[in-house]
């Protein structure tokens, strides 16, 4: 079902552009949420359901909300930005990213178009097993990192102990 991919691709690119281009930060954030949801859709379409769900939980449920909170806490409630992303000083940024995009697209090996998808069944149990066996060390490291981040975030933003993470 190719059209799913294309719809999702358009959705993602569109919402992604909206997310970085709008002047109203809250609108940016909302667009970002749509962007994240699109990515989750991509994951679903790749049969990585777990990852998709995780994507929604973490990005939509947590990070986006966090960003909204940050916006509310650091700006005026309406979230209006004074400076447009198209101002003069940003030109080098656009150039650089466009150049990178060109390089990336150019460097994609055209042969890969030939490879097609293979179905596979990955269950939760496999993921769990992999996490606890083969990837036990990275898993532990990540958990440590998350703990550190939690503590760090709380310490840094200590005056607001209700901050999540």
């Amino acid at each position: 079902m190719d059209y799913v991919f294309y719809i999702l691709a358009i959705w993602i690119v569109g919402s992604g552009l909206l997310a970085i281009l709008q002047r109203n930060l809250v609108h940016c954030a909302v667009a970002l949420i749509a962007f994240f949801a699109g990515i989750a859709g991509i994951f679903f379409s790749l049969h990585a359901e777990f990852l998709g769900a995780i994507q929604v939980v973490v990005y939509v449920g947590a990070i986006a909300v966090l960003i909204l909170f940050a916006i509310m806490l650091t700006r005026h409630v309406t979230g209006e930005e004074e400076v447009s992303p198209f101002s003069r000083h940003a030109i080098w940024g656009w150039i650089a990213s466009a150049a990178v995009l060109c390089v990336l697209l150019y460097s994609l090996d055209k042969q890969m178009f030939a490879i097609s998808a293979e179905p596979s069944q990955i269950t939760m149990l496999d993921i769990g097993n992999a996490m606890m066996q083969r990837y036990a060390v990275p898993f532990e490291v990540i958990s440590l990192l998350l703990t550190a981040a939690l503590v760090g975030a709380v310490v840094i933003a200590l005056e607001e102990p209700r901050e999540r993470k």
Partner: protein
Amino acid sequence: MVTLTHYLVLAAVVFCIGLAGVLTRRNAIMVLVGLEMMLNAGNINLVAFWRYLGSQAMSGQMFAIFAIAVAGAEAAVGLALLIAVYRHFRNVSVEEISSLKG
């Protein structure tokens, strides 16, 4: 027929959108948003490779999971930092808080 390269192109585009966000916005929050988008681009790649090249090995998914976890941690710490910075400078513009002297 959607192939791996479709996903790679998508990822590249998303990455560059994120990069553009990072490079052009002056608000630190938006910089962070751009960063998250770049990370997502990476995740798309990981999952797509997993899907197309090695669906029995779990590496792609696993690293995507780890990447998401790291992104979560990064966002938490980054935003906490921003709030702390804002409290100090009353501003989160990247260029105006470049001073390291405090």
